[in-house]
């Protein structure tokens, strides 16, 4: 039991390491290309692409006949989980609230809506590909 938890933590930690580095890379690339924008930020890009990817990978992994728990933990919990962030999203919303309540609401709702939409598209896309192949 304890040995299993250690193994899980190592896989999640390894994925988290890569996810955090990818997020930092996206942040750096975004700021050097677009400067520091306030409505569509690097966090927006990461959260929406990450939501799309979790939809694709989740539906792929859950259709496998023998699910590999460590692979799930590495990819979903570790890598994609760390690539996207909620604290950064909320901090940005909090800063926007000082500028304008309307901007704040727009930022909050649009990102959540887009995230949900991205998961749905990611899952549907994979399901349809499977149907076409079969």
């Amino acid at each position: 039991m304890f040995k299993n938890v250690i193994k899980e933590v190592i896989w999640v930690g390894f994925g988290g390491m890569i996810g955090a580095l990818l997020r930092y890379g996206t942040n750096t690339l975004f700021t050097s290309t677009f400067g520091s924008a306030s409505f569509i930020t690097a966090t927006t890009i990461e959260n929406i692409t990450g939501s799309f990817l979790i939809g694709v990978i989740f539906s792929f992994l859950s259709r496998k006949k023998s699910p590999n728990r460590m692979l799930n933990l590495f990819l979903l919990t570790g890598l994609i989980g760390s690539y996207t962030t909620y604290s950064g999203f909320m901090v940005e919303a909090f800063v926007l609230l000082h500028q304008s309540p309307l901007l704040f609401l727009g930022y909050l709702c649009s990102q959540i809506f887009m995230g949900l939409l991205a998961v749905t598209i990611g899952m549907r896309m994979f399901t349809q590909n499977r149907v076409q192949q079969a």
Partner: protein
Amino acid sequence: MTQILIIALGGAIGAALRHLTGKIAVQAFGQPSIYTGTLFSNVIGCFVGGGFLAFFTHADSFIINTQLFLIIGILGSYTTFSSFALESHQLFNISNKDLFAYLFYQIIGAFGALATGYGIVFWLMERFIHV
């Protein structure tokens, strides 16, 4: 190079802590439940994030690497948006009532936690460090 190592280490710690939070949540609330590890990680992470925001914006001359390690590394990885979106999507297909409660806790809960964390640290700093 130092920055990359710092973020890698912080990211690994944050993700591992999130996984352990999830295990505790399953022990406490069972599965399936709207009280998931993701919910707790996000609310706790936003509370701490609010505190850091107040601290780092009002206490200048702080080493950039400390901020990268704590905010981008640990907190950034401890909280997650993708699992939040995935869990919302799953609830959307099950129950509207649960989805509404889940979104309420995630959005209002996390934002309230962030504002509370910010307020506490801001108040402490005003009182004791006189920023």
